[in-house]
Structure formats: C-alpha cells, structure tokens
C-alpha cells in the first residue's frame, strides 16, 4: 500500500526537534548527569497548518577521562495527531586520557506512531572521529546510515560529513559539510525536494555553521544550514534555527528555540518549522565529590621586584572580595576588580603557602585549582613558590 506524502508529514515532523545527541564531554573523574525536559511546541510543515504538541525528553549520561556514554529518550504528542518517540544511545572513547583522538558512535530508533509500532519507524547509526589540533581547535569526520519504514514502504539513506570547531573565550564555532544520499522519495516530497529524474537515489550537499555563546547562566546558539541537490534534484534550500537556555539555578533552566530544520533523511525527519519552550531539570552528581575542573584561581608570577601570587576570583561586581593566607598572617587583603574578575597580586617569599578567599565577609574558600587542605571545618589552598 502506497501512502501519500501528506500522510507522513506530521507524524515524522514530530521528531524534527530531536537532534543527534553528542556524547557528553570527557571529564575529570567520573561524572553522572540526569536531565528531564518538558515543554510545548508549535510545529508547521510545508503545505500544512500549524499544530501544537507536548514534548517530553529524558537524558542520562556518564563521563570520565576516557569514556563517555549517554542514553536519551524523547516523546512528542499532539491532540489531533499521532504521537512519536525516539531513543538514542551514544558512546565516546579516547585511547588514553591525553589522546587527541576521540571516537564516537551511536544508534537511534524511532516510532512515528504509537498505534503502528513496528510498521512506521526509523533506525539509524553513526560513527565519528574527532581530532583535536590545538587547545581550541579540532576537526571531525564521520558517517551515518538510516533505514525508514512506513508500512510497506522502505527507504535507505546515508551521509558522510567533515567539519571543524574552534573556541575562543565564550564563543564556539562549528562548521560542517556533508553529502547525503537517500531513496526516501516520500520524505523528500514532504520536504519540497522534488525529483527531476527517475533515479531512485537523491544526493544532497549540506553546509552548516553553528555559533554558541555562553555568558553566565545564559547560552545562545544559532545554526544556519544551506542545502543543494546534486543528483536527482535541483532543490536549493536554507534554514536558520536559534535557541537560548537560561539557567535559573544549576538544576533548573528554561530552553526556548525557534526556526526551520531541513529534512533529515537518515533519521526520517521531514522539513519543519518549530517554536518550542521547555523547562529543564538537571540532576547532576559528581561521584568523587570534586567540583568540575576549571582553570586555577591562583598562579605564581616572577616580577622584577620578587615573586607574586596572582589571585583571580570570579565574583559579582558589587561584592567585596578578600584573600588571606599564611603570607599575610591571615590578615585579609582586599582584591580590586579588573574587568570581569577580581584580581590581586601579593608578594610572597619562596616556600609553601596556605591561601583562601572570601566574598562579602562570608566563609573562607580554597581557590579553585589548588590542592585543598582541610582544617577548622573549612578548606585552604596550598601553593608552593620556588
């Protein structure tokens, strides 16, 4: 039984908001994270009126310095249409913790309708390799294959892609180029990619650029994608998506996004324009009890007039920040604000020093990055000056 393009449009579009998830970044120690996201979306496709939908997703990950894994699930439901669900599993592996190579792989399975499980769905898998070229730049290459089933209709698709990323301060840029091959003519027609020949296979070239910017609790992301048919179609398309995440607390965030996503033949998701808003609840736990790694707050610098401890603390602009230690007889030394951070330079003699800082006269803390010594129901940092 053949089905029209219109019949598959909305059911598959429900999956449009599900992107291919990247395994979590490899981390110091063992890090676990669980996340639940619930929200609403408005979805429209070419040639159809808009629909409202509810979206619920869950995310569970584990990462250490050489291995990371995640399992994610996503379900979408609209009152006047069918529901859809997707499960994704992904792994990342580095031969050694210092290796510049990282290998990633994953698989996803989707049902386009709860009423037709086993007859309407998609399965896909992908492999990627990342190579870090420097502290802030790297390249990536990979490929994916997908199989989509709609009743008696079956279609295969595959894609190969290369890309690069670069980070600078709070900004991260990703670029990618890919070539996709698909025989999913129903999906293509629903996405306004029409064939110009009798060829069963269509080839599409994509180029995409993504910018992600983080400032405090706010993260902004925007993606621009261009597509051109190179075999079997002359289609030329472009799409823009944007999103923002604001974390009210480390555990609660609001996520909003809007834009158009082009059809993804490997995962059977058609062209759709979406606007969504959701609340994200994060349950993170650090098994070893250590805080996430960050650059050290304290460093040693050689000056013409001796050795100084350079202390840099992140604290609100209106705060009063002080540092103290064995070098000052534990007398608080005020720190002055320089740009976005608080900075002090304290002359110290060679030897080992215990150091701590406080904000607004509150409890003393060991600066990040220093070895921590426990004493007096608190922690001080230890630094050695040669």
């Amino acid at each position, binding site marked *: 039984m053949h089905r029209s393009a219109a019949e598959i449009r909305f059911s598959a579009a429900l999956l449009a908001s599900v992107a291919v998830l990247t395994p979590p970044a490899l981390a110091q120690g063992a890090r676990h994270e669980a996340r639940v996201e619930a929200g609403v979306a408005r979805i429209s496709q070419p040639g159809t009126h808009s629909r409202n939908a509810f979206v619920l997703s869950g995310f569970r990950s584990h990462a250490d310095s050489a291995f990371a894994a995640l399992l994610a699930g996503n379900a979408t439901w609209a009152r006047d249409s069918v529901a859809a669900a997707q499960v994704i599993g992904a792994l990342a592996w580095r031969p050694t*913790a210092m290796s510049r190579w990282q290998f990633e792989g994953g698989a996803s399975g989707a049902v386009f309708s709860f009423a037709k499980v086993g007859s309407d769905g998609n399965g896909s898998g992908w492999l990627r390799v990342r190579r870090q070229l420097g502290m802030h730049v790297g390249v990536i290459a990979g490929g994916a294959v997908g199989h989509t089933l709609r009743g008696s209709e079956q279609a295969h698709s595959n894609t190969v892609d290369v890309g690069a990323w670069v980070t600078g301060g709070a900004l991260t840029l990703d670029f990618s180029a890919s070539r996709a091959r698909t025989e999913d003519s129903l999906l293509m027609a629903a996405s306004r990619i029409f064939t110009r020949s009798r060829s069963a296979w269509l080839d599409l070239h994509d180029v995409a650029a993504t910018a992600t910017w983080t400032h405090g609790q706010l993260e902004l992301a925007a993606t621009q994608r261009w597509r051109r048919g190179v075999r079997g179609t002359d289609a030329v398309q472009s799409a823009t998506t944007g999103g923002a995440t604001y974390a009210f607390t480390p555990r609660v965030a609001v996520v909003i996004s809007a834009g158009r996503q082009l059809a993804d033949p490997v995962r059977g998701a058609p062209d759709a324009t979406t606007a969504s808003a959701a609340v994200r609840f994060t349950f993170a736990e650090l098994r070893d009890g250590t805080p996430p790694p960050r650059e050290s707050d304290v460093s040693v610098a050689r000056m013409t007039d001796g050795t100084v401890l350079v202390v840099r603390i992140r604290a609100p602009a209106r705060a009063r920040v002080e540092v103290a230690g064995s070098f000052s*007889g534990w007398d608080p030394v005020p720190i002055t604000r320089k740009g976005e951070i608080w900075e002090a330079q304290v002359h110290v003699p060679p030897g080992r020093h215990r150091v701590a800082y406080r904000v607004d006269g509150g409890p003393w803390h060991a600066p990040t*990055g220093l070895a921590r010594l426990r004493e007096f129901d608190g922690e001080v940092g230890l630094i050695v000056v040669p």
Partner: protein
Amino acid sequence: MSPRTNNLLLGAALCAAMVSAHGVGAQEARLLSIRDDATRNRVRIFVEAARLRGTPTEPLVSRALEGIAFKADAKRIEQALAALEKRMRRAKELLAPHATVDELAAAADAIANRVPEKAISDLRRIAPRRTITVEIGVLTELVAKGVKPSVAATMVRDLMAKGATGAQLTELNAAVQQDVALGVTPMEALVLRTRGVMSLLPPAASVNAAQRP
C-alpha cells in the same frame, strides 16, 4: 681560650639572644591580633610550652591565626595546634639530622595529607645538605590533588635523584594542574609530565647533582 675568643663568643651569644627576643616580640605582636582575651591566652600558653619543648613556634602562631580567620573556638584551635606540634616533632625525626622551620612545617602538612613518611625521609636522604621545602610542598600538592601517594612519592623522588630543581618540580606541578583542568586525571597527568621533565634532565645527572642548591 684567649680573651679575644671569649669576646667573640659573648658577642655571638648576645646577638642570638637579641634575635630570639625580637622573634618572640614579633610573635607576641601577631598574637595581639587575636581579639578574644581567653583565646589569646590559651594560644599564648600553648605556644610558650611548645617553645620550651623545643618546637618551632612560628608555624603554630600562623595556624592559630588561621583558626581565628576561620572563626574556630579556642578549644578547636588548641586541638589543631597540638596535632600540628605532634606532626612537626615526627617531621623532625624524618628530616634528621637537621631541618629548617619551613621544612618542618611543610613536612607536617605532608603527613597530615597522607604523604607516606618514608617518602619524606627519602627526600632528605637524596638531598641531605639543602632545603627541600619546595619538594615536600609539591609532593603534598600532588597527593592532595588525587595522585596516589606512592606514585607521587616515587615520581618526585626519581626526579630529585636525577637532578630536577625545585623550580622544575613547581612547573611540573603547574602543568599537572593545567592538564587536570582540561579533564585529564591527576595520575595520568603526573606520569606524562614527569616523562617530559625527565627528558630535559641530563642523563649523567646523579644524586650529587640533586644536592646542588
């Protein structure tokens, strides 16, 4: 003994007494920064008793002031001072035949942070004639950061034996910290960075080289 020699000895004794008195005076001034009279008196009594027992008092005064900064009560401070004095006395044995005050304080911190005692005495054996405060401090930092104590002790000992300077060890420690911030485990970072420092050391370096200041 000639009159000239007698005069020299008398002068030296007077100078030593003046320096000692100056040190005691400076410490007394620092103790005056403890506002609570009862706490100040208990700290003063403890420090004076420690002095009579032959324990260097400067680290004790510093730790007492740290306790004041952390708003610890007099009893808690006294307990911390007693524990520190005990560790310094043990450190004195490990660093025998002689140790500076800074070395004792550094070794006391090392003991408190699970650095094996044998590792401390090994460092002294490798460098019996120069101060090893930095080396002990680096070892303590590495262990406090999560490196297995036996591994950290072996690495630092081997580097010292091959002639690594205190500055090189401090740089290694900073590099380990940098790697850890990038997500590498402290253990792997130390092993890797140690290889890097080892490759910079002259192959012919020996224990004698390690003893150079």
